[in-house]
């Protein structure tokens, strides 16, 4: 199939005795807004790092836009944008300097880089203090800048690790519309988030990882259909998620364990 933007085959990563990601087979179609969910420590960030070249798989294969990542890393990286865990910013640059750095590293010419940088800073409401270093930005401002850096070169796939964490409601709205516009233009978005309401609203397709293994994958309707319950009742993504993870052996904390609160 040629329209798959992201394909992984038995993607595995071990850290000593711990298998953080265990034989994950993912398939994300081009232009999809894809949510990648899982409990803490399930292997989401490790997977996203392997998909973006920040971590080498122990086993398995990653193919992005039909190109083998391991064989052609530079060509693949040119087509993707990433907001990694920790954001990966050079904190001693200003926002404009960092965007210029990233734009030029991705091969944009200087006038284009500067124009896009100015527009993105304006859109993200970061343009007011052009001489402020990133080290002096708040967490939310750093997150917005990381997002601006991820899209400045016009990627065909966007990998976002917790993009809405620490971003205010106003900025989150703007980001959602930006991401919506990008999917309309055929960009594939691969997103991890703990805020299931956002994922439910934005994503058409979802995969759930638990203890390193992929336990569910498909459209929201497909996942809903696979959950037992009364016919006709509308299940939220949170209910789907909890049902699948608990079915896979995940345990929900019980309030009864707190003796002093009973």
């Amino acid at each position, binding site marked *: 199939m040629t329209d798959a933007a992201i394909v992984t085959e038995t993607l595995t990563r071990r850290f000593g005795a711990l298998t953080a990601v265990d034989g994950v087979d993912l398939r994300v179609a081009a232009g999809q807004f894809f949510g990648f969910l899982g409990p803490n420590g399930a292997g989401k960030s490790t997977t996203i790092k392997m998909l*973006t070249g920040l971590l080498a798989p122990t086993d398995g294969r990653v193919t992005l836009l039909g190109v083998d990542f391991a064989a052609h890393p*530079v060509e*693949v990286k040119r087509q993707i944008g990433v907001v990694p865990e920790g954001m990966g910013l050079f*904190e001693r*640059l200003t926002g404009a300097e960092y965007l210029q750095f990233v734009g030029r590293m991705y091969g944009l010419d200087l006038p284009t880089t*500067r124009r896009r940088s*100015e527009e993105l800073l304006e859109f993200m409401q970061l343009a007011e203090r052009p001489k402020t270093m990133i080290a002096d930005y708040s967490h939310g401002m750093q997150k917005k800048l990381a997002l601006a850096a991820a899209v400045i070169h016009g990627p065909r796939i966007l990998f976002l690790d917790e993009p809405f964490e620490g971003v205010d409601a106003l900025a989150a709205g703007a980001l959602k519309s930006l991401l919506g516009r990008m999917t309309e233009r055929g960009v594939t978005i691969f997103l991890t988030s703990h805020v299931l309401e956002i994922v439910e609203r934005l994503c058409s397709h979802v995969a759930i990882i638990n203890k390193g293994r992929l336990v569910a994958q498909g459209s929201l309707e497909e996942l809903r259909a696979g959950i037992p319950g009364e016919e006709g009742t509308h299940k939220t993504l949170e209910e789907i998620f909890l049902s699948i993870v608990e079915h896979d052996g995940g345990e929900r904390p019980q309030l009864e364990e707190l003796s002093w609160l009973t």
Partner: protein
Amino acid sequence: MADVILEHGPQSVSLANQIRLVAGLRWRLLRNKMRQRNNVMDMIGMAFAGILGAALVFGLSFAFFAGSQAFISRGRASWMALLFWGIFVWWQVFPFFVAGFGANFEFRTLLRFPLGRRAFYLIGLAYGLADFSSLAAVCWLAAMTIGVAVAQPGLLPAMLLVCGIFVLLNVTLERLIGSWLERVLARRRTREIFFALFVLAMLSLQLLNPLLQRYGNTAIPLFSRWAPYLAPLPGSLAGAAIADFAKNSPVDAFAAIAGLFMYVVIFSAMLWLRFAAQYRGEELSETLAATPRAAVRQPITGVTPDGLRFLSPAVAEVVRKEFHYLLRNGFSFILLILPPFMILMFTMQTSSRHHGVSVIGASRSAFFPGMMGYLILVLMSPAYNCFAYEGRGVQTYFMAPVRFREVFLGKNLMMAAVLAVEIALSMFVFSLRVGLPDAPIVVATLVAIVFTAVGQFAIANWSSLSFPRKLNFGQMRGQRQSGMAVLVAFGAQIMLGGISALLFFAGRWTGNPWLPTEAFVLLAAAAIGGYVASLDPLSNYAERKKEELMEALCR
């Protein structure tokens, strides 16, 4: 609003218990730090520091004992002020230097717990007494008390009273300075200015020798003239109180004690106000809130041409980024002023333009390459851990569609430019102070610099990937290079410096002044070839080492 009473809610904790809990917390923090596997070197370092610290405290305790006993028994009780001044300066200045190396545990974090303001204040004072500087000072005061008691037992109650007030005064003042320092150092910019001033102050100590040589004779009369003005200050007051008791002048003695006590009251009031501000939740954060869109802003685009267009875009951007980092890193910036400063210092202390030949007996033709070699040694050392200040930004290099050779090229080009500027500046200072040696030596030295610098780049790049260690801007505490990186740097510099020295000596032995230049040209060409050939293997090596690199830098 009525108070809410919880049936099984938390009970109030006594002040003694709170102090005990804080002491326990400090101990657990230290113990857990020691349990970390990679802190073996820290433990060894702490053991050495502990032995040295104990030797300092006990050695000086004996000196304070002997000094106070001698002053009292020989009827020079007024000299006791000197000892009190020594302790006062130590108590107030030593923690100031320690603060530069960063705080171990933020006292303010206790504010999240239900502490009363009085408890917060008293715990703050108790916390101040637990510092090394305070404990050492208390030991020395105890030694002085014993010395005075041995010389004149009747002075013991007076000494105990004066020492008690002196301890309270010093703890209060130290905490007052500490809390202001904490406020100042909480901001990145002031922290870096402080750091830069600190390093400059350390460098300025080098000026002491020439200053003493020039003005040493006039310093003592100057001090005698100013000494009476110190009389109302704490060290002098404490000394005067003991001296007055020794002279059987209790009225004067109690006046001096009252003066000391007044200081305690003033400092306590000021510290109470500082702690009260902290208690109310004083904001020390330096991050920005999002600014409204309507704010006036400066244009960020310009029509400035790309001055680095002769480089590939990726290399040019790495050079630019390195340049910005250099200007915004106080430590690197000071490293830049160090070489010409060192040349100035060495030439001031060892030679002059008129003498031509130095005091240490080295001729200009040996001194010049030696000085340049020393500069290379100083300036090249950061290259062996060149990702130290990248932090999480290092991820960008691996996310971007570039080969790592371009990152190294950019970093090495920037370093080469810095070297060129520094060498030019240093040569200028050298020529002004001593005069340049003959042309063959100057040319050979310059080509030798190319050989040793380029030769080191390849090794330094490998070292940066193999032994990365994160360093933080504007911080001194815990800022150590990896031991292996230091060893590699040392080995490479010994090897390349040794080869260079041999070639210079060969020129002298054979009587051919241009022989070193010819040899260095060949070696420099080989070094450049080796460097270019190393870039691709190092790119592959970076790919293999990326996880370790990111783990070390993204903490």
